Each structure stands twice: as structure tokens, then as C-alpha cells.
């Protein structure tokens, strides 16, 4: 069981969701509008200076699908590098 936190430009949310559906990832929690700033690139604060916003997803799935999803995310990022998307994967210690 892996957990993935995805933070991406709002405009990419639909694409991430489509990718998840294709891979068969079912469990997720999403926030449509969040503010954030990456280690590089423009901040996404929704203010006058930086008007774009981010979306965030917390996804939990089995190891195999998690790897596939991470690969998909990377493809999306390469397709539109200016928009910004990042995924963070870790082991889940327990669930019920």
C-alpha cells in the first residue's frame, strides 16, 4: 500500500483524474483549490501577483498502480512543464 500526495496546477486536475481512472486507482481525496509554491517556478497563490491556483490529491493504492500513476504524472509534467505538477510517494504503515 502506497500513499501519493499530488500537488498540481488547477488546470491539470482533470488530466490526473483521467489517468487515475485509466490505471484503476479508486481511493483518493482531493482539494480543488489550494495555494502553493514549488521549489522552482511560479508560486500559485491566486492573488493578483500570481493568479493561478493549485489542486491537491491524496491517493492511496497498491504498490503496482502507484508506480504506474507516478509514471503518468511524470508524462503529464513533461507535456506541459510550465504548469507544474509534483507527486510524493511513501509507504503506508497501516490502515483499517
Amino acid at each position, binding site marked *: 500500500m502506497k500513499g501519493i500526495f499530488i500537488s498540481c*496546477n*488547477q*488546470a*491539470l486536475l*482533470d*488530466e490526473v483524474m483521467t489517468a487515475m481512472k485509466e490505471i484503476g486507482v479508486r481511493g483518493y481525496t482531493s482539494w480543488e483549490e489550494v495555494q502553493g509554491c514549488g521549489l522552482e517556478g511560479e508560486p500559485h497563490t491566486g*492573488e*493578483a*501577483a*500570481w*493568479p*493561478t*491556483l493549485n489542486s491537491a490529491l491524496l491517493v492511496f493504492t497498491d504498490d503496482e498502480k502507484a508506480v504506474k500513476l507516478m509514471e503518468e504524472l511524470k508524462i503529464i509534467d513533461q*507535456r*506541459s*512543464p*510550465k*504548469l507544474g505538477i509534483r507527486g510524493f510517494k511513501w509507504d503506508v504503515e497501516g490502515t483499517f
Partner: protein
Amino acid sequence: MNIYKSAVKNPITTILTFCAVAIFGIFSLQRLPIDLFPHIDTTYIMVITAYPGASAVDIEENVSKPLENSLNAVDNLKHIMSKSKENISVVTCQFQYGTDVEVATANIRDKLDMVLNNLPDEVNKPIIFKFGTDDIPIILMSVHAQESWSGLYKILDDKVATPLARVDGVGTVSIQGVPERQIQVYCDPYKMEAYGITIEGIAQIIASENRQVPAGTIDIGNNTYSLRVDQEFQEGKEILDVVIGTRNGANIYVRDVATVSDTQQERIQESFSNGERSGLIVIQKQTGANSVDIAKKVEKEMNKIRPTLPSDIRIKTFVNTSDTIVDTANSLVDTILMTFIVVMLVVMLMLGRWRATIIIVLTIPISMLSSLIYLLIAGDSINIISMSAISISIGMVVDNAIVVLENITSHVDRGERLKQASVFATKEVGLSIIASTLTTIAVFYPLTLITGMAGVLFKPMGWMVTTTLTVSMAAALTFTPVLATLIMKQNPKKSRFQKYVDAALDWLTEVYARGLNWSIHHRRLFLVCAFGLFFVVVMGLGPRVKSEFFPTQDNARIGIIVKLPVGTRQEITKELALRISNDLRRDYPEIETINVTEGVPDSDNSWASIQDNGTYMMNFNLALSKKTERKRGMIELCELIRADLRKYTEIRTFEVRESGQRGGAGGGSAVDVELYGYDLETTDRVAQQIKQMMLSIDGCNEVNLSRDEYTPEYQFVFDREKLAQNGLNVASVAMLLRNRVNGAVASYYREDGEEYDILVRYERRFRESQEDIENITAYNSEGKAVKLRDLGKVVERHTPPAIERKDRSRYIKITGSVGKGYALSDIIGATAAGINAMELPYGVSWKFGGTYEDQQDTFRDIILLMCLMIILVYVIMASQFESLAYPFVIMFSLPFALVGVIFGLLLTGTPLGVMALLGILMLVGIVVNNGIVLVDYTRLVVARGEKLMDAVVIGGRSRLRPILMTTLTTVIGMVPMATSDGIGSEMWKSLGMSVAWGLSFSTLVTLFLIPVLFTSLALRRQRRREKKAQRLSE
């Protein structure tokens, strides 16, 4: 879910909603009436009261004064004027602009009911007319006839005038120049005296011979018959055989003492169309009624009437105001289409992408059509103001769509999918679009709140632009993103054209960035130059701008009133009228129809009797070919005609009226000096001095006084003692005199259901000199003949002309024309200086009235409004920036707009009128937009962490393109308006010009000045912060 997302998700709903708006708009367009202006007509109501036999002074004292005193209390009254002349008093109430005619009429009727009992007993009941004497007729028709000529008056009166007067909105229909048929019994006084017969006797016998009397019924056998005497004359000649007495056993017939002719009235008004004898039908509309609407109804009615008229009668409409109005509307439609195309080209050129251009341009028709829905709901019409509003907004409505589309494009360029980009990009700019639309609306909305003439004019404009901008904002936020997802391409390839455009704009941006960089590093020098320029232009050139009220509209109509010396015989007037008419027709091929009317109308023609007329006066109506079909303008033609008329030595005074009218919107400009004073002689003298002084002013070629000269007349003064000795009295001899000269109506001659007067009077040659009058025989109580010369004498006197009053004091109006190339302000200035240099006698005062008064009132309202707008715009900007200083910086665009306008007006020699002032008003809302964009973006760049100086240049560089684009669409959108030459274009030319010049100049300055001021302000703040920090650290 937000509105942008739901719009993009439901494209069908969104598109159909806007389609519905468009369809309703088209529907409204078909139902909207067309007019020249919104209900701008001054509301005039005339009260006409006849007091037969009273002189001008009596009328003034006993009729006009009491009426004025009572009517003065009517609500919304602006001025009250009266004209008292022999037999008649005309009181004209002028109401504030926008007053409801019906309500005003009802109020006047109430007041009249109250005052009626205080008037002398012989005064007739006052008649109310819902228009003013200054209103020009909306339709003039000439009538030609051959066989029917003698009975024409009755035919026209019954079959044409009466049905037309019933048409809704028609004020009055009057027939001029058509004589009434009359059977004249011309008597020879010497023969009558020989037989001992009088005019009265003949009249009485004719009346009793011309009878039809039902005598009851009789029963004969089984039947009942009615019995009647029908001895009415079958033809005029029968009168000759009437027995009027016996002498020495022989009958005396009418033919023994008189001749009978079946002819027309002697004193008539004659009218000539293009030199040919004709009748004239004049249609006047009610205040506030729609001319085009009336013209249509009249035309429809005429089509019904024509077949019922005898075949030889030809009625031709030669002046129809509605033609000009429709032509004006059409030429504005051309202007609007032109603007549409030009704006489209600008968008295409700046964006370089046709798909984007289509999306943006589509918002234009939708917002335009929505404003038409407003017009229909508000009961307004398509007119110069509403159409100008449309033309003005074309350049502005695309701005919002441009901003949205630009942002969508930049999102797509960053790699977003079209659908997402449309939603998020729109959402990002949504708030700022609403804010910038609000600033513009802040300018236009207050227009809906003002009153007075400016209110009447600008209310529809305010509402229309507000509606249009609101709809365009809604369209930009929903319709544009939907269209973007449907029409735009995900990865468009740049066309070669677009590359050229980009290269050119990049070069321009580079030049601008360098210039900007230089100016923000030389702030002091730059500011000194800029404000130096401002003061030089405003102080130095500003006073040279001429001012006017409304430009004179070339509506292809000229009215001329020519007066010969008072008392000139009608035959002489007629001869000259025909000569002038022929000369003008020969010299001016532009004249299509020339109609001249001279003479005095019948006394029972109430409309004609309130107008100035006399045997010495002639009235011309000239219909010119359309403005677009001739080289010489109307004002130029008027000037030439004035010069020509001056060559006729017989003419005492003349008045040439451009547009057929004076003052108001579109009428000829004129300077009205109102001279108040009780003593007629003193005011006459001063008025003459002022007239001479005004004639010496350049550009003022014609000056007229409203008070005419004294009219010479003969008065028969009876000696009461001699009358008494003969058992006579003034009433009986006066009647006797009247019957012999004016004639006695003996009876009526009936033919085909029409009645004509049978008039018995002296033959003409027996009443043509003073001796003839003195030789009239009267019979005293003993039946002995007495000559009138034994009862009194004829003296020659002068009667005072009509006495005019305004606001309850006697006054004379001195009207000066404004020549070609001169503006109202030129003549006003010189006149005021001239009068001030004169020494006016005690009790005489003066002021400017008419057009100048309207101009001053309206200008005052507009300037007040402008202050209100500036405050409102400031408030909106302050709340937008949450700062008091930045909006102040942005406000500096305003004075430079004024500089641009002054330049524009001076270079083109256009006077500053209401329309140009309206342009300046609009500039308040438009010019600040560029400043807002610049300051907003520069602050954003600073917030992103750039250094101040760099941020200013980066901000300027990035905003240059959108600023240029929105400015160019507006400026170039105004060019068709400013340069159009169609019918009616005089009206909106100055509006287009002031916006175009003001906005381009202010944009040019704003692009440098605002960043410079911004830098200074931001630097000062930075320093202050640093000092504070330093203090704190210490």
C-alpha cells in the same frame, strides 16, 4: 461550481441565451420609432385669446396681463411670453425640458378656468395649442389645381385638412394661399343713391329672396304631401334679377345698381410654388410627438384621400422633416457599420489571428442589440443620441473580450487544455474586468440622473452605454470562453501575417521601453515639460476654442421672411415675390422647390391670424436637394442668399433662417438679445442702436428686431355732436362704413352641399381713396342722405405694433445670425462688449436669451456632472487599489485628454458644443482605464519581487500591447464618426472628434507620465519606509 465553469460545461445553454438576447434585439429594432433626438423639443403651449376690436395696448392690459399672472403659477414653467396685437393675445408658456405636455395642458386649463371670469365680457374663450410659434412645420405640401381652383378651399378644408388634423400627434393643419369662393355683389353708390337704396337694404332683400322654407303638409285625396318653398339661387347670376324696390311704378332690380360675380375673396393670401400659383398645406406637430410617425400616418391618410379628390387637384409634399430624420438615421447606420469593420480590422491586425478576431467581434452585435431592447422597454426611439451611444460603445465592448481572450491564449501557450484554460483564465481576470467595467459605468450611469435639457439628451445615452457594457461584460465572462473552447485551436501555428505583426509590435515595444526607461530616470525634466505643455495649451490655446450650443444641421431647408415697407400694396409685394423666387431659382440650382406666400389670410383662419402677416410681407420656404447631392452647404447658401437679398432696394428687412428655424438642436445658431423696458419708444431706439452695433460685428450679417414698425392706418373720427343731430351713433355709422368697405354677408349660396358667402359691398373703384370714404352716404333718422364727411373726418395715424412681453415685462428680441465660419461665442462676446459700452437709459435692461441661455444651462449641468463623475471614478479606483495615492496618479491622464481635445477642436476649427462636451465627459471614464492597467500591472511586478525601476519598465513593456489595442479600437472606432459627411453628420462629428483626439493624446502622455509619477510616488514611500526602519533600529 462557478459561473465560468458552468458556462463552458453547458455551451448550448450559454450560446442560446445570447442568441435569445440578439433575437429580442432584432425584434426591438423593428418596433422602435425613429426620431432626430430624444424628446428634446421644448414644451411650448400657446393660449390664444381673441378680443375683437381691442387695440394692442388694451389687449396687453386686459387680456395678456391677467392671463400671464395666473398662468405664471403653473408647475415646471420656465418662461412665459406674450404677444398682444390688435384683436388677439397669444400667451406662450415655455416649460422645462422633459415636461409632460398632457399634464401641462391640464394645469393650464385649470388656471384658465379660474381667470376667465376676470377677463372682459367680450373676450372669446381662449384656445390652447400644444406647440409654439417657433416650431417649424413638419410637412409642407403644395396644391395645384385647374378647374377646381375656385372651390379649392372648401375641398381642401373638408377632405384634406379635417381628416389630417385627426391624425394622432398633428398639432394643426392650415391651408394657405387658397382663396375662398365668394359671390360678390358690387354696388355703384351713385346709382344706389339715385334710387335711395342702401347696402343693408340690398343685403336684407337678397337674404329674404334666397330662402328654402318647409310649409307643412297637406292631404290631397288619399295622400299626404309635404309643401315647401324652395327659392334658393341656383346660380350667382340669379341675384341680378332680384327686385330690390320700385320707383315710379317700375321695378328696380339688383342689376340696375350692381354687378354680380361668382369669384373669390378680395384680400387673400397667395402662394406660388416654383413660380406657379398653388395652395400650401402646412402641418404642424404637437410638442413631443414623433415626426417620422406622423409623416407615415399622414402619408397613409393622404393615400386614402387622393382618390376622393377631383382629378385635377395635385398635392405634392415638398418638405418632409421625416425624410431628413430617416436619412440621418441611415447615415448613422452607415457610420456604425463602418466602425464595426474598422474595429474588426484593428483587432485582426493586433492579434493576427482570425479565429480570435471572430470571437471578440461577436460580442459587438450582441451587446448592441441588447441596448435596443432597453430602448424599446424605455419607450425611447432610434435617434442621434442613442445611435451615437451605440457607435461609441462598439470600441469599448470589445475590450473585455480582448482581455479574456488574451489570458486564455497565454494559458494555452503554457500548455493548458483549451477547456481548462478557458475556465481558469476567465476566472483570473473576472474580477478586474468587473472593476474596469464599473469605472466606465460610473461615468455613464450619472448621465441618467441629470435633469434639464442635458438630462433629456444624455439619459438614454447613459442607460444605453450602461446596458451595453454590462451585457458585454457578461458576454466576455461566459460567451467568450465558450466560443474559445469551440473555435480556437489547441496548438495554433503562427501564420506569416501574424509573424509580421508580432515583429512590428516587438519593435514598437522596444522603442517604448527605451523611452520609458529614459523618462523614469529624468523624472523632473519630463514632468516640467509635460505640465508646461498642459498649461501652455489650456491657458494659451484654450480661450481660442469657440463655443456653440448645437451645430446647425444641414436639413436642406431654408426659410426666408421678407418685409417691404409697412403698408406696401399686395400687388407690389406679389410682383417682387415672384421676381425673387425666379431669381433664386435661376441662381441656385440646389433649390428643388421654392414656395412663397404673400398677403393676408382670412380672418377666420385662427392659425394664420396668430402669425405675422401683412400685405407687405412674404414668406419663402426653400427645399434644397439633399446635402450629399450638392457642393454648397446650407449655411453658405444662406449667406449668399442674404447678400443677394441685400441688392433688392425695395426690401426693408429680411430674415434668412437656416434649417427653417432658429435655435434648439439642429436649428440655425442665433444670438438673441432680450431688451426689457416699459416705454415702447425708448426700447425701440435702444434696439435700433444695438442692431446697428451688431451689424458691424464680423460674422453677423443679419439682425432682426421682434417688434415691427408702426403700421400706418386711416381712422375715421366722428363728431359725436353731428352724429347726435342726425340721430345717429358711432355703432351704426361704424357698421355702415364696414358694410361698404369690407362688405356685408347677405346670405349663403349653396352648391353641391357647400355654402359660400354672398357679399354685398361697394365696387372696388368706389373705395380706393380718402375722398371715396368721405363721400359714403348715410341716411339720418329723417331718411335724408348725409355724407360721412359731414359727420367727421378721416385722419392718418400710426398704430403701435404687437407688444411682446417675456416673464411679465415688455421686451424686444434682437436676433443676430451667425455666419459661416463663425461660432455662437464669437458673436456673443462682441455683442456683450458692444452693449456694455453703450449707456442704456434708466429702466432698460438686457440679457442674452434663446440659444445662449440653453447653452449656458446645459454647459453648467454638464460641468457639474463632470465633477461628480471624477469623484465617483476616484472612489472606485481608490477602493480597487485600496490606496488614495495611486488613483490620484492615474487621474493625471484627465488634463491631458483636455489638451488633446483643445488641439483637435482648434486644428479642425470646430466649436465646442454640447456634443463635444459629451465627448469630454466620456473621456473621464475612458482615459483612466489605461492608467489603471499600467499601475495595476506594475504593482503586480513589484509584488513579484522586481526592483521598482525595472518593474516599471517590465510593466510598461508587457501592457503596451493590450493598451494600444483597447485604445485603438476606441479611437479608430470614433474615426468614422468624426469624419463622416452624411446627412446629419454635423451633429456627431464633434463628439467623435473630441473622443478620438482626447483619448489618443492622453494615451500617448499616459504611457510615459503615469509610470513617471508612479515611480516618484513609490520611491518616496520606499525612502520613508527606509527612514522609519532606520529610526526604529537606532
